[in-house]
């Protein structure tokens, strides 16, 4: 180390990462911010100001969609945690060897498949002429065809389905590292199932819970396909609005402001999640 050749080697290794991060991540986001604070006053004439952000706050449609997206993402995250935790616990603690590997793989396979295919599957299941509607009619539970698609519940089902793996995997990893003897000791000392869950299992699984929740929230917030395809015409999603401003309306200034607001919200949640659990980004994300 310290010789000229190894310094050269070091700079050669440093070059690609700097090029990647500066050209594709940092500068584009600076650019996005600059566009978001420019106002169009004439053809190819711009002025700096926060008009685009003001437009967001003064137009109820915009901020309501934003709030709706955030609230539904939080609900999807909570639901994913509640549904995923027992599964992760089952895989980590109640199965061994072959069965464990098989169950884990069965969890992973749907997520190697494109999100589009998964959403398409839900469309076939839920639509008026779909599988579930027909099954219910066949069983005599309903009289005519029922439309299960194009509502918020369908979006929720799709969001949970799309992101549950990202909850299950970190949970299985952290629960795996919990020694069974700790749980046994809990029982020996007179703990009940509930108190052991609360006092031993959940505190131990906290890092997994936090990283799972962060990823699921982000994925739901930034999701485009599921709300567009499973939600109806009225079920707006903020990413859809960004797309509309950019591609349909060609109003890049407002679209950039929207993009920055979404980025701000998702960064804030990541920050709060890490702060709350006392973890750093490197250890939470670096493990995946």
């Amino acid at each position, binding site marked *: 180390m310290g010789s000229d050749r190894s310094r050269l080697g070091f700079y050669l290794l440093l070059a690609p*990462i700097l090029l990647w991060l500066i050209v*594709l991540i940092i500068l584009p986001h600076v650019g996005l911010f600059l566009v978001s604070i420019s106002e169009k006053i004439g053809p190819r004439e711009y002025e700096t100001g926060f008009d685009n952000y003001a437009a967001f706050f003064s137009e109820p449609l915009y901020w309501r969609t934003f709030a709706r997206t955030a609230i539904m993402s939080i609900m999807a995250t909570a639901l994913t945690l509640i549904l995923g935790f027992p599964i992760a616990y089952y895989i980590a603690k109640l199965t061994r060897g072959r069965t464990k590997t098989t169950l884990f793989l069965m969890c992973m396979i749907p997520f190697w498949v494109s999100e*589009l295919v998964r959403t398409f599957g839900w469309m076939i*299941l839920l639509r008026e002429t779909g599988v579930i509607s027909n099954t219910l009619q066949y069983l005599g539970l309903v009289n005519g065809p029922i439309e299960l698609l194009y509502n918020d519940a369908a979006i929720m089902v799709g969001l949970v389905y799309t992101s549950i793996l990202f909850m299950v995997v970190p949970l299985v990893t952290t629960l795996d590292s919990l020694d069974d003897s700790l749980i046994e000791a809990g029982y020996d000392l007179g703990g009940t199932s509930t108190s052991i869950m609360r006092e031993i299992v959940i505190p131990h699984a906290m890092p997994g819970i936090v990283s799972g929740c962060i990823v699921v929230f982000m994925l739901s917030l930034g999701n485009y396909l599921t709300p567009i395809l499973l939600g109806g015409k009225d079920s707006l999603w903020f990413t859809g609005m960004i797309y509309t401003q950019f591609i349909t309306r060609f109003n890049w200034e407002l679209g950039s402001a929207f993009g920055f607001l979404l980025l701000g919200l998702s960064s804030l949640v990541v920050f709060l999640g890490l702060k709350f659990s006392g973890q750093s980004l490197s250890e939470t994300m670096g493990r995946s």
Partner: protein
Amino acid sequence: MIPTVPQPVFAKWCYRAYVTVFFVYLALPLTVVCVFAFNNSVFPSLPWEGFTLAWFFGTEAPFIGVLNERSIMRSIGTSAFVAFWVSALAVAVGTCNAFLFVRHEFRGKALLYMLMLLPLIIPGVILGISILVFSSSVANTLEDATGLWFDGLRPGLILVILGQFSFITTFATLVISARLQKFDPSLEEAALNLGASKLGAIRQITLPFLLPAIVASAVVSVLMSFENFNTTLMLVGSDSPLTITMFDKLKQGSTPVLNAVSLLLIIVSAALGLLSLLFQNAKR
């Protein structure tokens, strides 16, 4: 609840029932997609009209199979082209990053590592629009200054490749770094003692050791590139990759030809996914 502590039988069965229902929920959408690829009807829905392979091999309208549907075949080609370049770039940069983070100590390393992880927490749509905005403004500036056209910086395949590369590289870096950390440096030292040059030792000792991780990350990159939608949507030009073509067809109302493509995608992605796991877990 662990196997060594007895639990009421009823609770145990409830738990098992829940796990079963969960796996049915996981399998259901993919199963129906696959099953309806063989339905002899122009809609991917019930009633079941009988078994057919027309949605794969059919040549007559309306039963045009995947293999004869030109727009789909072309977009598979486009996706493959994009995936190849994304994977090659991501693995090359990822390997450099792994050496940088595992072998070197320098000021600002923690900061750089955190920056490297950032693409994971930026929503794909935002990554897409930021690159779109930035490349367009660069293109505008260059065109004003030189009077030439810079089509490569306008929405199109180059931007799609760069956009996907910008976050897939993080995954490649993490996978390859994890393997490099397990490498025993004394092996490389031994090679140096035996007269190998620094680069020769890396090429003949370290890189072969890293190969499973390199292959695994290449496979994962191909997979992620093939199925990426959010970032691609914002950067796509006239040549659309497979997911975009399928999305457009889906919005217009679908025929089972989409089920047939999906079935092929499911098979290929599952195979690639398993392959990447095999390589990642390769013991030495």
